């Protein structure tokens, strides 16, 4: 490893613009003649739209147009799609309710747009939106899965009887029933995985610009995957053919999944820019983010785990109701199925698993992939079950986990996944050492003398990342391939541009991707630029989510680098009159091994472009590209342990220590990896203690601002104690597993296990607010 190579803690190249206020986010962009959009949104969770009167709004100053849902339907802009087909256990396809970008007839959640005002300024658009009169006929609403599945419940979509999207199963029911029939002990648990609002700090935004002469659109948008956005806008929403649509995702202020999806606002902005003949900008406010960004989680689950007389797990049964909200968002269907139920084996040998997942429509904001996407729900369930089992079976929770750990790899679980490598004992050892697990009993006793209830909680998580290979996800219903692309362009002076289909919105690709180049060529990272986020520059790409950019995106860069290096070695060998096989690359030079003959990399690049003296038959230039499709998912895993104290008088929780021992395979930049873990842990802790997107029984959101929704603040969180153990991923040549979501996946269970340990009662739902903890302590 060089000072800037793989494994180095290189400070980020992209930071300079962010710390000096020179970042370029969508809302920072102004176009000539730009108009501003403000949406007219439903205040009702469920209602018929009987009529829209725009006459007063149209007379207001600066108003360019008022456009409605009926017009977007009449113009044949496609309905929003769900890109992952799930088949119910009876063989029927999932039941999709139609979702137009603005509602022409029926609104099904608070915040759904029915019309948009286009005006000269943002304030004028907002004023005029107030003057649009919508005649609603209110309908009864169902706000949660319990209400939605009741007999006689109000129906949302004619396409989905019983408000059911699908009833999907995985695993072997017969084998699982047999295991339970023979079980020495059965542990049962009901858990609710609380709904979260994503809340990337940058609200979503879009600027659409239509060029009538070229019949060409440009869209600036807050996207994690601009090429997927272009594909969907083109192929399904009929905005324009792909070559007439450029999508640019410049600096994006956090995504966490919520900016994967193509939302109605982008579609409307594009459509409206053509209709009004001027660029249209929309920037959401925070309440719009709460109302319209796809939410996360929201599962209600009953699970049972069977053990034999030696406390070995013999079977697992799970039944989960997943709340999808009012419509099926782009990848929503895959989250509680292939991203959740396939991880239900956790880190454990479980011979038989059967899971049933019932997807349900409710009159709430759509739910989709968010920061872990299905895997936090699986991990939380399994790790709460293991803790519950340890308490019921009266064994040490660490010992129970160890005796059931998978220790031989590869390991085929009963729920599709084939774990390639791991060492779960190593990460648990590291975490237990870091927190001094052996000394906990004494610390608990001492805390008791001080009137505090102290608890410790473990969580041994595993996740599946990369969201690939394409063939595998295709066989499971994905509508897209999930490879990644890269292009390496060497300029005649030897500087390098790396074009990637991955998208950085906080992950630090502009630094880590350069580190790979520095590692291989020995050139400084200042000589390398990363180009991403623009469909006119990068040919195609699948974007960033599922902790995939290093394992898949960086490997694509490696593949392109190998091709480029191979050609460069031929050029160097020719120039040095040596054999290609004798050329080695060191410190920016191509050398003949064992001699002092060398040619600097910029001279190789120049030779490629002057083409005065290339090997016979070689094309000029030095540019190579690659598409990389991995052979398997990757499986990051680790052990988290939380130690905390509860004040029995107030129910307030205070952290004593939080340790995380993760196995992410090879780390490119440990500083950045640690940052990713910190952020994930904050999310996991936030879900456990603070966050909850709440609706009342009528489907009215109760938590639609930062005044009401409890975001983790600095003083809600501890400093974290991190360490790493390493097993290299065999599925990609760099041995990378991915680190972006681990904290969010593993942390929640550790916190709840610790609180329930402290208070001596096992049943406690998230978020464990002081009120809820106090009530649990003092319940009869």
């Amino acid at each position, binding site marked *: 490893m060089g000072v800037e190579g793989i494994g180095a803690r290189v400070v980020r190249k992209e930071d300079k613009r*962010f710390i*000096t206020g020179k970042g370029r986010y969508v809302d920072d962009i102004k176009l000539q003649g730009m108009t501003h959009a403000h949406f007219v949104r439903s205040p009702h969770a469920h209602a018929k739209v009987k009529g829209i009167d725009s006459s007063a709004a149209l007379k207001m100053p600066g108003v360019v147009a008022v456009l409605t849902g009926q017009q977007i339907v009449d113009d044949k802009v496609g309905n929003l799609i769900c890109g992952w087909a799930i088949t119910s256990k009876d063989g029927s396809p999932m039941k999709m309710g139609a979702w137009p970008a603005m509602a022409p007839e029926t609104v099904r959640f608070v915040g759904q747009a029915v019309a948009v005002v286009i005006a000269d300024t943002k304030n004028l658009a907002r004023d005029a939106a107030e003057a649009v009169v919508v005649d609603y006929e209110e309908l009864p609403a169902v706000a949660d899965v319990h209400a939605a599945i009741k007999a006689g419940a109000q129906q949302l979509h004619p396409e989905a009887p019983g408000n059911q999207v699908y009833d999907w199963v995985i695993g072997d029911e017969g084998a699982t029933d047999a295991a339970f029939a023979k079980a020495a002990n059965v542990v049962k648990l009901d858990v609710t995985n609380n709904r979260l609002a994503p809340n990337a*700090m940058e*609200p979503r935004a879009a600027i659409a610009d239509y060029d009538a002469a070229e019949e060409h659109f440009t869209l600036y948008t807050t996207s994690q995957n601009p090429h997927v956005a272009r594909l969907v806008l083109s192929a399904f929403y009929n905005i324009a053919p792909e070559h007439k649509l450029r999508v640019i995702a410049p600096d994006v*202020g956090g995504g966490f999944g919520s900016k994967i999806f193509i939302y109605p606002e982008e579609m409307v902005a594009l459509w409206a820019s053509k209709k009004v003949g001027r660029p249209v900008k929309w920037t959401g406010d925070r309440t719009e983010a709460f109302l319209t960004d796809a939410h996360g989680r929201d599962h209600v689950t009953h699970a049972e785990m069977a053990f034999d007389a030696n406390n070995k797990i013999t079977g697992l049964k799970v039944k989960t109701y997943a709340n999808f909200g009012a419509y099926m968002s782009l990848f929503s269907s895959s989250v509680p199925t292939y991203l959740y139920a396939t991880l239900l084996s956790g880190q454990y040998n479980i011979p038989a698993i059967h899971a049933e997942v019932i997807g349900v429509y409710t009159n709430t904001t759509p739910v989709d992939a968010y920061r872990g996407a299905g895997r936090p729900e699986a991990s939380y369930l399994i790790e709460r079950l293991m803790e519950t089992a340890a308490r019921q079976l009266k064994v040490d929770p660490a010992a129970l986990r160890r005796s059931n750990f998978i220790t031989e790899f590869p390991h085929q679980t009963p729920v599709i996944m084939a774990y390639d490598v791991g060492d779960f004992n190593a990460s648990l050892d590291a975490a237990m050492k870091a927190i001094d697990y052996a000394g906990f009993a004494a610390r608990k006793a001492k805390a008791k003398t001080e009137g505090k209830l102290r608890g410790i909680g473990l969580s041994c998580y595993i996740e599946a990342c990369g969201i690939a290979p394409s063939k595998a996800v295709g066989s499971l219903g994905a509508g897209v391939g999930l490879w990644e692309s890269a292009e390496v362009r060497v300029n005649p002076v030897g500087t390098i541009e790396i074009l990637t289909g991955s998208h950085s919105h906080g992950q630090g690709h502009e630094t880590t991707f350069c580190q790979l180049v520095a590692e291989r060529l020995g050139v400084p990272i200042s000589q390398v630029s990363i180009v991403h986020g623009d469909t006119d520059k990068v040919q195609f790409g699948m974007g960033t989510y599922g902790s995939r950019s290093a394992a898949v995106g960086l490997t694509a860069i490696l593949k392109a680098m190998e091709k480029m290096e191979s050609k460069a070695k031929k050029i160097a060998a020719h120039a040095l009159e040596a054999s290609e096989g004798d050329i080695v690359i060191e410190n920016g030079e191509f050398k003949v091994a064992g001699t002092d003959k060398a040619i600097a990399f910029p001279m190789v690049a120049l030779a490629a472009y002057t083409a005065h003296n290339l090997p016979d038959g070689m094309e000029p230039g030095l540019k190579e590209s690659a598409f990389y499709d991995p052979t398997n998912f990757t499986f990051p895993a680790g052990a988290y342990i939380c130690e905390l104290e509860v004040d029995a008088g107030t129910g307030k929780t205070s952290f004593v220590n939080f340790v995380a021992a993760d196995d992410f395979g090879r780390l490119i930049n440990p500083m950045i990896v640690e940052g990713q873990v910190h*952020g994930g842990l904050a999310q996991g802790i936030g879900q456990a203690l603070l966050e909850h997107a709440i609706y009342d029984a009528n489907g009215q959101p109760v938590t639609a601002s930062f005044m009401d929704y409890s975001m983790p603040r*600095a003083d809600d969180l501890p400093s974290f104690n991190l360490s790493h153990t390493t097993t290299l991923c065999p599925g990609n040549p760099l041995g990378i597993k991915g680190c972006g979501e681990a904290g969010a996946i593993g942390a929640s269970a550790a916190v709840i296990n610790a609180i329930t340990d402290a208070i001596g009662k096992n049943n406690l739902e998230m978020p464990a607010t002081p009120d809820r903890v106090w009530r649990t302590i003092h319940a009869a």
Partner: protein
Amino acid sequence: MSTVKLTVNGKAVSVDVEDRTLLVQLLRENLNLTGTHVGCDTSQCGACVVHMDGKAVKSCTMLAGQADGANVTTIEGIAKGDELHPMQAAFRDNHGLQCGYCTPGMIMSAIDIVHRHGGGLDEATVRRELEGNICRCTGYHNIVKAVLDAAGRMKVSQAAE
């Protein structure tokens, strides 16, 4: 419409704005100082923090007219040419930012925290004082480290001056 006269990053400016214009709108839309961000509608997130007459304020929570005659410093105005403010350098060196959206407000708040507490800063104080700035990326761990690091650097640079 009103004319608002103020000094921004050392330059006197005079801007005609609608009376309802917020200070953050004046900065972003009239002066093109887009480093100051808007992350919420309720004065909670702190992405819009700037300094007015030396004190941290949320620029989304005051009218532009209230800044008439004031001396405003934004994230664009704290470096001395190419020399970063110690707080900016500390955020970079401690990986105190990821997506960068909350960062300008964090840095402006953090400078104010150090000014108010001087040498008396510890982790708990920094965490409590950052209550009005929300970050979704970093879990605050490295932000807290950066502020404590910068507090030391600012003491040194003050001593040097």
